[in-house]
């Protein structure tokens, strides 16, 4: 039931008083009542002069209960609160204000149900705007129901927390795996080194002449021990790279000296495959920015790979090209090239072109993956060009020292 509203009491003209008194009889009143937001208007005496249907439902207070009463009479709990001071500011200094839900957990006691159950409280975002009409000041309070937004962000909060926890678990597992791999590899390497030492002594004959059959068996044992050691060293490198524990001492490196040394180290290996290394002209004094030992490790890997995949009696060509502060080292072989279907996986761990090749060719399938990681840690890049049946060219790009 609406109390009749006297326009002379509340400073509005009679037409507007009509609308406020019985909104459902007037177009603008109906519009206000159909609004999805709570709307009420306070005059300069802090008396409520408009109260839309949304407010009636959410507050369980009828128009007759509130119109003509002051804001504080209707909401005694809000006396002295921020909402009261911003309403005063709107009326006194014509300032507009926003009360966000996050910084004002409880603004108005408004509920989705008449039972005023705390769980059914409406989450609110409130705007307070000054209005002037016919020389009078008013303050319009709009209440927007942000409950769905709050619920959405609560879900988001839970999901983000779960994702963070899952990430922690995954990181923990990954760290454990790296530590486990590195510990096991160390533990394997120690006894294996002494096995290789002992077998080496036996094979060399210092412990006495060996029968040929025993000599052949010892040679097999030696070779396989060697292979296991390579594998373990590669696994150790990979786990160091993955756990970020591989240290780099970056500085100027004389490229020609490193290339010559790497060729020398691989000479004997090349001879096994009847392959020769050929170094094309390198400008003396070409200095790159790298870690000497790690660069050497990468070159050794590329040179030994090239020999391994070259036909007997061919050469491996090594060239150095300088362009715009970048030095490219190219290692070209004349083997079968890299099969198209393998090209995308070539730098992955434990990958070799054909599983069946492994035994014949030897190697762990870790070398290129390690080389790629090392070159990238040094700020460079690695890649290849190949044509099946013609050969393959692997290259690494590193920075010229002067340009760093």
């Amino acid at each position, binding site marked *: 039931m609406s109390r009749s509203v006297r326009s002379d009491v509340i400073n509005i003209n009679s037409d507007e008083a009509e609308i406020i008194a019985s909104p459902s009889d007037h177009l603008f009143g109906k519009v206000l009542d159909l609004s999805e937001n709570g709307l009420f208007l306070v005059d300069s005496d802090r008396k409520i002069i408009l109260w839309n249907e949304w407010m009636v439902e959410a507050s369980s207070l009828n128009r007759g209960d509130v119109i003509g009463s002051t804001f504080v009479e209707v909401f005694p709990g809000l006396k002295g609160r*921020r909402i009261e001071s911003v309403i005063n*500011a709107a009326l006194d*200094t*014509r*300032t*507009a*204000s*926003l*009360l*966000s*839900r*996050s*910084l*004002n957990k409880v603004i108005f006691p408004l509920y989705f149900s008449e039972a005023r159950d705390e769980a059914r409280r409406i989450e609110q*975002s409130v*705007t307070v*705007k*000054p209005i002037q009409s016919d020389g009078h000041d008013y303050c319009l309070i709009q209440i927007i129901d*942000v409950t769905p*937004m*709050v619920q959405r*962000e609560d879900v*988001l*909060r839970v999901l*983000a*927390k779960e994702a*963070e926890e899952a990430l922690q678990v995954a990181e923990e597992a990954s760290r454990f795996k790296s530590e486990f791999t590195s510990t096991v590899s160390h533990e394997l390497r120690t006894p294996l080194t002494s096995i290789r030492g002992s077998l080496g002594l036996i094979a060399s004959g210092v412990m006495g002449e060996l029968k040929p059959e025993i000599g052949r068996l010892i040679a097999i044992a030696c070779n396989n021990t060697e292979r296991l050691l390579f594998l373990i060293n590669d696994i150790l490198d990979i786990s160091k790279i993955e756990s970020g524990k591989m240290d780099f001492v970056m500085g100027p490196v004389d490229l020609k000296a490193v290339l010559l040394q790497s060729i020398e180290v691989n000479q004997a290996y090349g001879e096994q495959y009847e392959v020769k290394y050929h170094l094309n002209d390198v400008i003396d004094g070409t200095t790159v920015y790298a870690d000497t030992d790690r660069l050497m490790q990468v070159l050794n890997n590329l040179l030994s790979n090239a020999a391994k995949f070259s036909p007997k009696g061919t050469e491996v060509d090594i060239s150095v090209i300088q362009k715009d502060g970048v030095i490219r080292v190219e290692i070209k072989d004349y083997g079968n090239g890299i099969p198209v279907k393998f090209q995308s996986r070539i730098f992955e761990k434990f990958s070799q072109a054909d599983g069946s090749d492994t035994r014949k060719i030897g190697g762990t399938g870790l070398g290129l993956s390690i080389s790629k990681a090392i070159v990238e840690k040094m700020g460079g890049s690695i890649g290849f060009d190949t044509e099946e049946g013609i050969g393959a060219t692997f290259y690494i790009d590193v920075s010229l020292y002067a340009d760093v």
Partner: protein
Amino acid sequence: MLEITELQRDYITEVLNISMGSAAAVLSEMVNEEVSLSVPEVDFLQRNAAANKFDQTNAARMSGVTQSMRGALTGDALLMFPEEKTLSIVRILLGDTVPVESLTEMEQEAMCEIGNIILNAVVSSVADLLKKEIMSSLPRFIKGTGSEIFSVETCDNNDLVMFLKVDFGLESQSINGYVTLMLNVDSLHDFISQLDEQISAV
């Protein structure tokens, strides 16, 4: 840049700091934590110079709150911080937040309220200085580069901007932000003459 005397500058700073103090008190009470606000620097700059100041803050993007003003001043009032600082302010003040890289809707709304409190304080002290009324709109969240925010491309660069550095003190750290008010030439003259009148009355 408009030259103002040391005395004028001190007077403006003083007036602004008083209103900043009350804005800080409101914020402190809302978040139950000590918040301090002060204005250590006041400048009058051309629009493009103000944009350059933002672009020199080492933050590619700024974000914050804008309100438009009507009355004795017509234009925009802005409170801006480097984007990641806005994130820290809201998250320090709200405590419990969603750990995502940009502000959520609710957090933007909270930032709007923080900006609203600070900008209302600045605008009302300028209105007091002018002895005139300035009405401002509700706050809106914005972000962008200095040039985007000041519409350097499309607006007259001779417009002047009152450029305030603001120290936002929170949890023993101080976050630097900026409040800017666009001023038209007439209101600027009014502002300076009112200022002189009030200074001589002191």
